């Protein structure tokens, strides 16, 4: 190795700043081809929309804001909110059951999630729409949150508090709502469980080392952190639920959006414009929810090393532009 006396001026004074690098960028011809293809396809699609008279735009616009359609939109939103609210409640209960150390509770939670996740929602909803076939009266002896059980056989339970006509009660709207909520509960159970399990066990440990009880730990330490993991998929579930309200048309729930739009189609035989209208309505509604979800997610990641996250994201981007990450 070279041996030299140390440089005479050990503290470098930074010289004047050199010119910033403005390099000629590398060309990507392949990309341009792809862009041209996309442009052509987009143009053709627009051309189709404009020239093909089967779209019947004016008819569509006339009809897609009629009061019954607006009613359908409201129904979709109301069902989404109600089914999600019930579903989240059921989901938390089922998740805690599944995480119980008691095998019977855990098993019951498992059966519930397994059953309702394994059956297509549309089959479930049609089935629930026909549940009235089983009984003529329903009678309740246990509170509402046991409705699952109630649905499946309460008619010979002795502690009857009140009863009603099953044929009217479990049909249409109610049947659809219950079906969606039970199904959602099973999905939410999995999400909540994953969220709870995602929290570093060190957190629960630290909490119990401080003398906090299991319930306190769950409520104050684990669940708030699990929220970060729970919220994004719950947002997705919400959006999925909004879309799945379209399945209510097959229960059938007549004041549902898709049913109403189809009804206009069937009255006038202009099926296609009304399907396009359905697409547009759902596009609009889900897009709004997606925007909402974006903000909710942002809110829930507050305080969690936002700085690091931003840094990581920045690093990705710069590494990418430097030719690093794909």
């Amino acid at each position: 190795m070279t041996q030299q006396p140390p440089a005479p001026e050990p503290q470098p004074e930074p010289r004047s700043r050199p010119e910033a690098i403005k390099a000629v960028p590398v060309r990507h011809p392949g990309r341009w081809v792809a862009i041209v293809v996309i442009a052509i396809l987009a143009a053709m699609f627009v051309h189709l929309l404009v020239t093909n008279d089967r779209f019947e735009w004016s008819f569509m616009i006339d009809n897609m804001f009629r009061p019954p359609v607006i009613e359908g939109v409201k129904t979709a939103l109301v069902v989404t909110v109600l089914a999600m609210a019930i579903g989240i409640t059921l989901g938390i209960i089922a998740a805690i059951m599944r995480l119980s150390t008691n095998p019977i509770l855990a098993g019951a939670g498992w059966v519930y999630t397994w059953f309702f996740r394994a059956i297509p929602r549309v089959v479930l909803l049609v089935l629930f729409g026909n549940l009235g076939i089983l009984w003529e009266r329903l009678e309740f002896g246990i509170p509402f949150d046991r409705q699952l059980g109630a649905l499946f056989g309460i008619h010979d339970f002795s502690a009857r508090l009140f009863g009603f006509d099953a044929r009217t009660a479990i049909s249409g709207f109610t049947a659809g709502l219950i079906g969606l909520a039970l199904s959602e509960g099973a999905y939410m159970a999995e999400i909540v469980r994953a969220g709870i399990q995602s929290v570093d066990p060190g957190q629960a440990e630290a909490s119990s080392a401080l003398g906090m009880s299991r319930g306190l730990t769950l409520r104050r330490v684990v669940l708030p952190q699990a929220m970060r993991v729970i919220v994004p998929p719950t947002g997705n579930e919400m959006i999925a639920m909004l879309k799945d309200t379209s399945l209510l048309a097959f229960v059938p729930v007549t004041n549902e959006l898709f049913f109403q739009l189809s009804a206009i189609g069937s009255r006038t035989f202009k099926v296609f414009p009304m399907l396009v209208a359905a697409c547009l309505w759902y596009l609009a509604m889900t897009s709004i929810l997606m925007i909402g979800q974006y903000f909710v997610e942002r809110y829930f990641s507050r305080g969690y090393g936002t700085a690091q996250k931003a840094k990581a994201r920045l690093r990705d981007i710069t590494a990418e532009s430097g030719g690093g990450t794909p």
Partner: protein
Amino acid sequence: MTDLTVTGDAPGAPEPSAPRTGEMVRVENVYKSFGSTEVLKGIDMVVRPAEVCCMIGPSGSGKSTLLRCVNHLEKINAGRIWVDGDLVGYRERGGKLHELREKEVAAQRRAIGMVFQRFNLFPHLTAIENVMEAPVRVTRLAKSTAKTEAAALLDRVGLADKLLNYPAQLSGGQQQRVAIARALAMRPKLMLFDEPTSALDPELVGEVLDVMKGLAKDGMTMIVVTHEIGFAREVGDTLVFMDGGVIVESGDPRVVLANPQHQRTKAFLAKVLS
């Protein structure tokens, strides 16, 4: 100092039933396995009030496990542990052991502060909220009182200006000091430290050790698992060297470090001090 009294009983003799007075921690012939691997193989140890007991030993020797057994985060398989005269995790009644209920275990743990290698601060709470959490929720202290006390504790660990920072906005050393303050907030009689500085950048180690030295000076009983030999020499009343689930050697840190009796201790110290 800890004396590893190999109690006078012959092997197989009936267990002595209670700790002597003047002992903060008594660990008696403790065994602990995970599945089929035995991690602790007959540990005996006594820590007297106001004593600082430092534990060293190679990775996997069971140091963390022993600490975790002391506050019943792990259940031991055999033996007994007492903290401040109370049997940990069980009640002996009619010659039979009964598991304590969750609440009772929690009550025992309140007397024992624990500081983890990876801090385990609650990331969704600010520094002061981390410190207030247990007093407010567990001992039901009024919020305002808890706040004042938490601020005082954070001041004591040198973080008076970081009360409202989230853990992610603090350096490792600062986080660990918050963790110490959080444990102190429950006014523990005993503090357990599990390699409190090993996840820290070398520059940040000093600030945490300083806080611990302060605690020791104030008379806190402490068990400290550490690789900081300097700290053990300066602050420790006893040094315990563990290897393979047993305590190989223990005694005055200056004596053990200068003149280890056992081959395994010598080999380990040679590596660590190099």
